[in-house]
């Protein structure tokens, strides 16, 4: 292979990787926010993403919504679902050992997956094309309009999220709770409300990711959240868990690494490479790329 085609392939893989990575980033954001506040690895988060895809599917096929209302509808429904899950499964366990909450999260994940299987059958559903997939040629490179939409939507959502977290009252409260929950409580912050809001926001982002994936790959099924869920968590840890820009960068890096490994080595080693990079980063910078190393005090 000559240099030119190698470079061309590299750029093409970069485009593929970024569009895949921005979806990981959307899911990872919810993960990282929930972890930041509850110190809980919410294994059910990947299934919220699946739920979001199905809500989007219902909105487009049954209600005939177009893209924007459909994605907003899915985000709203998933936010409600997130709040309900937190209320029923996680809130009663606020003081329980963390591993018990983790098991509950795994339980919720199974319940969502197989509940959906019961309702919607395990057969994959095909997502209707809500806008046409135009293909653009930039020289030898190929970009399709869906990739552009995914990237643009992801960027807009992340900007909105950053705004909420940085400049609104609830965002300030979130940061306070994640910094020190007890102190925040003493300052008069209603912790339960903040946690509900975090779940709502995180779930809405995951749902947006689900709808975008549904449109991009136009195929959704009840187990679709399992692997992206784990991958998104890897992305969150990669960037430094609990840190919002970290999740975005982690997601994009993971997507690009996967595309490069599939392109230049073999796609069967893609997941192994993703986990391998995670472990290497953890060993050399345990708090992730953006994380600060905090020495544990007695």
């Amino acid at each position, binding site marked *: 292979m000559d240099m030119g085609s190698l470079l061309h392939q590299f750029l093409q893989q970069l485009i593929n990787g970024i569009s895949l990575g921005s979806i990981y980033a959307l899911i990872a954001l919810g993960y990282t926010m929930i972890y930041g506040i509850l110190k809980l690895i919410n294994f059910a988060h990947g299934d919220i993403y699946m739920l979001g895809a199905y809500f989007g599917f219902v909105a487009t096929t049954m209600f005939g919504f177009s893209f924007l209302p459909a994605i907003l509808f899915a985000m709203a429904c998933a936010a409600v679902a997130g709040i309900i899950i937190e209320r029923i499964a996680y809130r009663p366990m606020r003081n329980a050992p963390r591993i018990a909450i983790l098991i509950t999260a795994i339980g919720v994940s199974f319940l969502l997956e197989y509940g959906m299987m019961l309702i919607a059958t395990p057969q994959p559903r095909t997502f209707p094309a809500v806008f046409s997939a135009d293909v653009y040629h930039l020289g030898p490179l190929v970009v399709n309009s869906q990739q552009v939409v995914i990237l643009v939507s992801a960027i807009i959502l992340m900007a909105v999220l950053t705004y909420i977290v940085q400049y609104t009252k609830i965002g300030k409260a979130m940061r306070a709770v994640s910094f020190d929950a007890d102190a925040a409580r003493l300052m008069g912050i209603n912790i339960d409300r903040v946690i509900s809001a975090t779940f709502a926001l995180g779930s809405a982002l995951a749902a947006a990711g689900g709808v975008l994936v549904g449109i991009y790959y136009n195929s959704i099924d009840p187990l679709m959240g399992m692997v992206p869920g*784990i991958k998104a968590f890897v992305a969150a840890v990669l960037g430094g868990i609990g840190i919002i820009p970290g999740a975005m960068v982690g997601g994009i890096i993971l997507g690009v690494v996967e595309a490069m490994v599939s392109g230049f080595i073999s796609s069967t080693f893609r997941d192994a490479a993703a986990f391998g990079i995670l472990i290497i980063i953890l060993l050399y910078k345990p708090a992730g790329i953006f994380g600060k190393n905090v020495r544990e005090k007695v």
Partner: protein
Amino acid sequence: MNYLRKADLKRIVACAILFAAVQGMMFADIIGPFWELNIVLICINIILAVSLNLINGYTGQFSIGHAGFLAVGAYTGAIMTVKLGFPFEVALIVGTVAAGFLGFLIGLPTLRLNGDYLAIATLGLGEIIRICILNIDYVGGASGLMGIPRLTTFAWVFWIMIFIIFFIKNFKNSSYGRCCLAIRENEIAADTMGIDTTKYKVMAFTLGAAFAGTAGVLFAHYFYIAHPASFTFMRSFDILTMVVLGGLGSMTGSITGAILLTFISAYLAEYPEWRMIIYSVTMIVLMLHRPQGLFGNKELSMKMFGLGGGKDGRTAESK
């Protein structure tokens, strides 16, 4: 010391009686082949649960990659008997040692991490092991390693299980085990007391991995096949659930958890659509009410019944 030995002797006699009773019922066909299979499966799950309990429960290191070691044991054991023609005993030893060695290699660097970071690293390593196996054509790749003879019998699996249970019980009560418990309670304090925390963490991890390997050899030689799909992170979650459900840090808890979940799974086979739903709801509800698991970190004993056993999660909810 003498007292301990006497108690152990009593326990071993009790195990022998249990073994004779179950084996007798199998010969007399009171326990049919289906339940025989599930009893073997329970024994394998008990080995997995107590070995994970050694890492997660006693040493307090959060590992969720146990399926990877199970896979290593299953595959190396199967290579020994199927490809190289060694007897089953050799396969058992090699499978155990291979998984233990890998546990050592993985444990040495990763056990510096703590809490959730270790969890995600072990989860990742478990998947890496599986993906590597998936890409090795020598062991059948995605088709799995087929044609493994059924060499595991109830006698083998039962006595190996008893050996491992006693080994871990005695390990816990040894000076090594007490160091592990100290690390669980407070790693920094243990470090200050002069305990080489890395050494003991790696030791517990290696032992746990090795026993998971033993379980793998038994598993592959009972179900005729070693298949990558049997060793996904879902399997790791299954084992973790058994341990946590029974009570993290309780040997009898792990055993009960393994028995309970295997039985539930076997019974629910009749209702495939509902199986996972009932399973998951049971899991959630149990955790909501007994977040510390059925037995907490206590052991099931006659004393516990005297006190009325663990009813509702009084201790947990009183906070």
